[in-house]
C-alpha cells in the first residue's frame, strides 16, 4: 500500500541546513496499523507530512497504492490528498463554525458528492464513531474525545486508502485516549491501513507494528502483539 525508498529531506534554517530525514525505507501493506515513534526532532512529523503530501521530499521515491507521488502541483496534491488520504490531527482541527455533520461531509464536498449523499454518508460515519446524536452540534459543544471522534469520522468519510494520525491522543487524557485508540483499532479491523505517529509507548503498543525513528533514520522496525484498547474501556 505504501512504499518508501531512500527518502531524504532537509530544511534550510538560515545558513544552516538541517538534515531531518536521512534515507528512510519502509513498506506498509494494506490493513496494517503502524505506529511511528520517536522523540521530538526525530523526523517523525516530517515523515508524516511527506506521506500526507503536505510536504515534499528532496530525494527518494514514494509510492502510494501503486501511484508514484512526485512533482506535485498544489492542485494535484489536493486531489491526491482527497482521494488517498484521511488526516487525524492532535488538535482535532475541526472547522469551528460548522456542525459535526458538516465537518464530516467536507471531504465529500470536495469530491463533488451531492448534498443529500453527503449528509447520508456523514451521518453513517458519525454513527460509526457513536456521535449520531451530536450531528448538529458545533465543535465548541463537544468534548475533546468527541471532537477527535468527529475528526476520525471526517477522515474516514472520503473512504481513503490510508489514514494518517498525527498524535491523535496527544491532547486527550488516557481514558479518552483509549477510547479513540479503540475506534482506530475497529477501523483497522475493517481492513483500513492506518499510520499513527505517537511518542506514547502504550498507544504505540495498541498498533500492530512499531517503527522507531531516531535522528532521521529508522532504528527499529518490529511487529508486535497488539494490545486491544477495549480492555481498558469499560
Amino acid at each position, binding site marked *: 500500500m505504501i512504499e518508501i525508498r531512500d527518502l531524504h529531506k532537509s530544511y534550510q534554517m538560515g545558513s544552516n541546513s538541517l538534515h531531518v530525514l536521512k534515507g528512510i525505507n519502509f513498506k506498509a501493506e494494506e490493513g496494517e496499523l503502524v505506529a511511528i515513534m520517536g522523540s521530538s526532532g526525530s523526523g517523525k512529523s516530517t515523515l508524516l*507530512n511527506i506521506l*500526507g503530501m*503536505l*510536504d515534499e521530499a528532496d530525494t527518494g521515491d514514494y509510492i502510494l497504492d501503486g501511484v508514484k507521488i512526485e512533482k506535485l502541483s*498544489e*492542485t494535484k496534491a*489536493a*486531489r491526491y*490528498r*482527497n*482521494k488517498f488520504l484521511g*488526516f487525524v*490531527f*492532535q*488538535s482535532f*482541527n*475541526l*472547522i469551528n*463554525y*460548522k456542525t459535526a455533520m458538516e465537518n464530516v461531509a*467536507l*471531504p465529500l*464536498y*470536495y*469530491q463533488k458528492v451531492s*448534498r443529500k449523499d453527503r449528509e447520508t454518508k456523514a451521518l453513517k460515519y458519525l454513527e460509526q464513531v457513536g456521535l449520531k446524536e451530536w450531528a448538529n452540534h458545533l465543535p465548541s459543544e463537544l468534548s475533546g474525545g468527541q471532537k477527535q471522534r468527529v475528526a476520525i469520522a*471526517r477522515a474516514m468519510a*472520503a473512504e481513503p486508502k490510508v489514514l494518517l494520525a498525527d498524535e491523535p491522543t496527544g491532547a486527550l487524557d488516557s481514558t479518552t485516549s483509549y477510547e479513540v485508540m479503540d475506534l482506530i483499532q475497529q477501523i483497522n479491523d475493517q481492513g483500513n491501513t492506518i499510520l499513527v505517529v505517537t511518542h506514547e509507548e502504550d498507544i504505540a503498543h495498541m498498533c500492530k507494528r512499531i517503527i522507531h525513528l531516531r535522528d532521521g533514520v529508522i532504528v527499529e522496525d518490529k511487529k508486535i502483539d497488539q494490545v486491544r484498547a477495549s480492555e481498558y474501556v469499560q
Partner: protein
Amino acid sequence: MFNRDRWKEILEVLTSNWFRTVLTAFGVFWGILILIILLAAGRGLENGIKADFGDIATNTMFIWTRRTTKAYKGLPKDRDFNFKVEDREVLRTRFPQLRFISPRNQLGGFRGGSNVVRGIKTGAYNIYGDYPEIINQDPMGITSGRFINHSDIGEKRKVAVIGEGVVAELYEQGEEVLGTYIKIQGVNFMVVGTYKKKSNDGDGEEGQKQIFVPFTSFSQAFNRADNVGWMAITAKDGTSITSLKEQIVSVLKEKHKVHPEDQRAIGYFDLYEQYNRVESLFGAMRFIAYFVGILVLLSGIIGVSNIMLIVVKERTKEIGIRRALGEQPWSIRKQILLESLFLTIISGMAGIAMGALFIYGVNSLLDASGPVDMFANPSVSLGVVTGALVILILSGLLAGFIPAQSAIRVKPIDALRNE
C-alpha cells in the same frame, strides 16, 4: 457559483463578525453614494444651464453688419453697409456644409413702443421677417394653423404667425384667431398660425410674444429693399460652425468690399462655441465627480481588501485544514473572491439605493419649491448606474485578489503545525 454550500459559507464568514462587516461595507457604501450624489448634482447643474439654451439648434452662428473701420477699394471708412438677400445664395454655393441660412429682419425689440394693433387692443412685440427654415433653428411648436412657407415668400403674402402670448393679449378667450387680421405698423397681416416655444428659462414669457411674417413681405411692407438685418447660419451635422465662421466672414467681407483686416465691420456670435464651452465645463465637472467619487470608493475598497486579508489571516488554520482535506487552491481563491465580491456588491447596491433615494428627495423638494436657477432635475442615467455596478464588480474582484492570493499561499503544513 450558485452553490448553496458556498453561499452558506460566505454568509457564515461575513456574519461571524457583524460589526466589522458593517464597518467595512460602509466604506464602499459611502464611496458609491458620494459618486452618485456628485454625478447627480453635476447633472442637475447641467440640466439647469442647458435649459437656458432652449431648443435652439446649437451648431449655429448669428452674423450682422456694423460700420467699416478701414478704407478699402476707394470706399471710405465709417461706411454703413448691409447684407443683401443674395448673400444667402452666395453662401449656399460657397459652403455646401451649411444646412440653414436664414436672413432675418426685425421690428420692435427691447422697450419698443406699441407696434401692433387689433381693433381697440394694441401691443409691443418683436416682429421678424423670416424664411421658413427659421423654425428649424429656433424651434417652436405650431399650436394651430401653419408656419410661413415658401409660397408665402414667393408671393410676398402678408401673413403672420403669432405667439400664444400675443394671442392672449390681443384676443378674447376662445376667440377664433386664424384668418383674423392684425395691423403691424399700419400694415394688415392675416394670422395663419400660432406657436408656442418650449424654452423654460426666464425668457419664456418673452419668447411667446413674437410675430413671424414672410421675409419678402416684411421687406416690402417696411421698406427694407433687399437689405438683411442679420443672418442665422446653421452648419450640417458633422461640421462645426466654429470651423467655418472665419471663411464665412471673409467671403462676406469680399462681397461687400470690406477690408480683409477690418475686424469690426462684421459682428457675429458663435452659439456653438459658447455651447461647447459650457459643454466642456460640464465635462470637467463630470471628470471631477468621477475622480473624487472613485477615489472615495477606492478607499472603501482598500478597506474591504484589508479586512479580507485579516479574515484570511484568521482563517489560516482553517484554510490549511481544508487543503489537507483536499480542497483545490482555485476553490479557496474563488471562496475569498466571492466573499469580497459579495460584500462589495451588497454595500455598493445599498449605496446606489441610498443615492437614488437622496436624488428622489432632492427632486421632490425641487418640485415642491418650484424651479431653482441653474439647477434642474438632478439625476443619474441608467448607464451611470450600470457603470457603477461594473466598477463595483471590478473593485470587488480587485479587493479580493490580494487576499485570495495570500490565502492560497498558505501551506497546509504551516497552517497545521502545532504551535
